[in-house]
């Protein structure tokens, strides 16, 4: 198919055929990272700005590597080094970046909706690398890629997502993405971490962890942020680990071949025990590997690599 979507802002706006096309492209590009010379000239002469207004290691490095493997020039800007700290507005900073003619802006921001604000103000394609508690489309896509790789088809799968759903952009994007692809999503966590009305996104909710994972094909554990304890969302890490941590014993409730996933970074011993994190069915590091391929695919599609390829 021809790609003609300017931005990747969320999963919500992607059609099933577009998601499939992204995953297929990523599958095809994955092999590049296994070569001894890990570089193709596809995006030579293209400029990718990594505009990270919120700290990130994994996602930023993943995008950086993805851009470089496609021969694009990647430039990183973080909040601390940008003129945002000098009081410039976000829109002005973005307009300045736009004036230097980049081909893609990859942006991460702690405030939900910020990529929408910029996409209305500038013409440069934007890939959302996470906005507040709203969306993390590239994470959801790499999660779908990872599950599809292991389970062949997403339709009909039982996906359990467990933890702080309320504050998780990963959960939001995965609920929308997996249900759109025909999977069933079940959410679990303490009621303080389940956002109001989330069922309307297409997921079931149970506060009973064992029920949530019983018969699951995929268990996705979310990171617990320790500072949430101060916000009265859970009493202690010990209590949380007892009630909502994934242990070997708990794992027995799921299907024997259930995939264990986590968007990272891990809190070993809190939401997941070390044994489960390193379990044979854990695909946590596959997720990271696939992240590079998936982001290569998005940069390729959005930066016009396909159109260029057709021109040659």
């Amino acid at each position, binding site marked *: 198919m021809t790609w003609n979507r300017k931005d990747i802002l969320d999963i919500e706006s992607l059609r099933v055929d577009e998601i499939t096309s992204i995953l297929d492209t990523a599958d095809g590009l994955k092999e590049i990272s296994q070569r001894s010379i890990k570089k193709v000239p596809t995006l030579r002469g293209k400029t990718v700005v990594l505009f990270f207004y919120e700290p990130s290691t994994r996602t930023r490095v993943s995008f950086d590597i993805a851009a470089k493997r496609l021969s694009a020039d990647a430039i990183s800007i973080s909040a601390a080094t940008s003129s945002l700290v000098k009081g410039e*507005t*976000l*829109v002005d900073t973005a307009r300045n970046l736009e004036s230097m003619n980049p081909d893609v802006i990859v942006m991460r*921001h*702690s*405030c*939900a*909706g*910020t990529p*929408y*604000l910029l996409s209305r103000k500038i013409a440069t394609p934007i890939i959302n690398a996470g*906005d*507040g*508690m*709203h*969306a993390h489309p590239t994470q959801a896509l790499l999660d779908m890629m990872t599950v599809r790789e292991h389970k062949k088809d997403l339709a009909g799968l039982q996906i359990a997502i467990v933890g702080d759903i309320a504050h998780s*952009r990963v959960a*939001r994007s995965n609920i929308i993405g997996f249900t759109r692809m025909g999977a069933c999503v079940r959410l679990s966590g303490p009621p303080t971490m389940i*956002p*109001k*009305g*989330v069922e*309307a*996104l297409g997921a079931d909710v149970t506060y009973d962890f064992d029920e949530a994972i019983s018969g699951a094909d995929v268990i996705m554990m979310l990171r617990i942020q320790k500072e949430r304890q101060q916000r009265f969302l859970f009493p202690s890490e010990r209590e949380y680990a007892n009630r909502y941590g994934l242990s070997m014993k708990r794992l027995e409730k799921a299907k024997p071949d259930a995939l264990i996933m986590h968007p990272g970074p891990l809190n070993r011993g809190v939401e997941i025990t070390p044994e489960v994190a390193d379990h044979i069915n854990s695909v946590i590091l596959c997720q990271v590997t696939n992240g590079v391929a998936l982001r290569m695919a998005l940069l390729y599609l959005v930066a016009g690599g396909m159109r260029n390829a057709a021109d040659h």
Partner: protein
Amino acid sequence: MRLIIKNGHVLDPGNIDQVADITIDDGIISSLEPVTSDLSEKKSKAVRIIDASECYVVPGLIDMHVHLRDPGQEYKESIETGIQAAAAGGFTAVCCMPNTCPVNDNRQITEYIIETAKKCGSVKVYPVASVSRGSKGDELSDYGELKDAGAVGVSDDGLPVISSQLMRRALEYANGVGISVISHCEDPSLSEGAMNEGLMATRLGLAGIPNAAESIMVMRDIALSELTGTPVHIAHVSTKESVHALRDAKSRNIAVTAETAPHYFTLTEDAVCEYDTHAKMNPPLRSNEDRAAIHKGLADGTIDVIATDHAPHSILEKEVEFDRAANGIIGLETALSLGLKLVEEKVITLESLIGKMAKNPSRIIGVPRGIAVGEPAHLTIIDPEKAFTYDVEKGFSKSRNSPFNGWEFKGRAVYTIVDGRVVFESK
């Protein structure tokens, strides 16, 4: 100087409801008579005749909740531009909230506002001073001196009065002085969010503000009003729980009054989709169910007043990340038309609308409004059929933060008259 308003449907709720000619001499209504074909005798002296056929002539509207941003934030609004916007919206008077820079907690600022407004010679401005000095919630402002300077009420609007003891003493002390207390009801520990808590917030990944953040404080203030036996006015009611609490309090004869704003009876949280910062306000736009409860509260008299909470902000505060955007919208130039829309939809009667936009606020702040011989001529002439498209760029306010830009309206103020002078007329 004489002004004649002829053939208008004069509607002063509970007083007059008939087609009549009004003659105004030197700012005072000098005669009010059924329409006579012969005005020649009166005309001889007249300098101006307004034909109000097909229009309503009502007591001058009062907006008891606006922010004029002056002194201190004149880049958002000034007393002069705020007054112009008010006049264009049909308002003959506004009450301006004290959250200026510095806060209006003293005679000098109150007098500055009144003097500046007087120089404009248009809409009346009645300052509301702060409940607590600097709106810091530590000690009472000097209500006696503020009242003498011209303040009609006290409020820490924008911020809640967190200490129940301070609120109790404010109610008691203000009652002795004879000044109204207007309460911004919010429990800040519950309200750390950017929009209404609910499905839309979940979808957008924004932190939500639950209804209880408002209703808890409404219930507290009702309890304090009951305790002290003094009146309290609840600002910008947005939730169904608040409406229920107010209805119950009124049924028990507690001296509580309440206002809501046009956006709460018109919009819901759905307006926030696409992260529109012009739909960001505090309290936030609520659910459909809450809007229905507000309608019911307006219809049965639980909510006494419609006030705009006109809150001008520039693009510096609005063209930013949603979480960081300032709360509030402008409303002076759309309030009456949105109210007339409620009448059109048969939620309330026109008489009730005029009650909520003129008579009731005038009673609460102690500034008389009525159409009678011998009274000052503060009048609004409404053409209920006049259609127009609201273009915020052509508005009088310095700011442009309205979610109603581009809306098609039917009905608006065509003349605004203060002390017998036409301060606005619709082209």
